[in-house]
């Protein structure tokens, strides 16, 4: 890392640690789930959003997190909306036979 980048990061670290109400990246990370679930109170939410505005890696990380959740949520949406493929008749027969055998 160039000396200039190191200096920039150190300055940013100082600012982040000493600015009142500023979260560290690790703290930010620990609030991600609660923020995503809408469980944070307004002051915690503001602190979360303030960090996100100032910190590009956390901004990207959170955007990717949201997209990851959305990918899971939508992965089977199409399949769920469509008519499911018919099952093998043997399966139906086997279930009904097992019931009668009880």
């Amino acid at each position, binding site marked *: 890392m160039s000396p200039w980048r190191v200096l920039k*990061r*150190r300055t*940013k*670290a100082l600012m*982040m*640690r000493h600015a009142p109400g500023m979260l*560290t*990246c*690790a703290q*930010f*990370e620990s609030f*991600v*789930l609660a923020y995503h*679930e809408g469980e944070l109170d307004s002051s915690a939410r503001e602190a979360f959003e303030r960090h996100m505005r100032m*910190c*590009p*890696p*956390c*901004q*990207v*990380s959170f*955007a*990717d*997190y949201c*997209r*990851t*959740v*959305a*990918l*899971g*949520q*939508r*992965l*089977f949406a199409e*399949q769920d909306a469509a*008519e*499911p*493929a*018919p*099952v*093998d008749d043997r*399966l*139906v027969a*086997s*279930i*009904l036979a*097992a*019931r*009668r055998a*009880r």
Partner: protein
Amino acid sequence: MTEALQQHSDESLLDRLRAGDDAAFAELVETQAPRLLSVAKRYLGDVAAAEDCVQEAFLAAFRALDRFEGRSTLSTWLHRITVNAALQALRRKGARDEVDIEPLLPTFDSDGFLEGRTQTTAADAETLLADDDVRRQVRAAIDTLPLGYRNILMLRDIEGLSIKEAAEMLELTETNAKVRLHRARQALKKLLEPLFVEGAL
């Protein structure tokens, strides 16, 4: 079918099931098995295991018919029983080809900064999923998560249960469920990183 109509047709079907009417059982299995099989396949992968799971689920449902309270539709109730049967089958099957979760979690440098990219693609989930290859990648990535993480992600993000409901099904405390869910999503995000990197598609 509207909710009210569904409820009504459920009630008459339920009465016939409870009376032991063979035709009612055939109707229930024929109408519900296709959807339940596709749900079971999401957890178990191969068709034979999913078919066993669906059979087990129906038999468990038949045994529990008297306890069905009608607070959900029959199909929601059967869905829940099928997911439970699938989770049990996975537990019995034991260890699979799983990745180690630790290396997939975010890391911080000595100054406490997140080590990560500062740019990402703009494509939203829907756009990404329009590509069959992406769908396969997402499925495969979910499948490689360790079971204790994969299950909570499946229940919360794929089935859409609340964290509380998912925790109950997995016999976890709500706090533990949250920790696991968060790690599961972080790990999945890491596994799917190639989708998010600018110029990678």
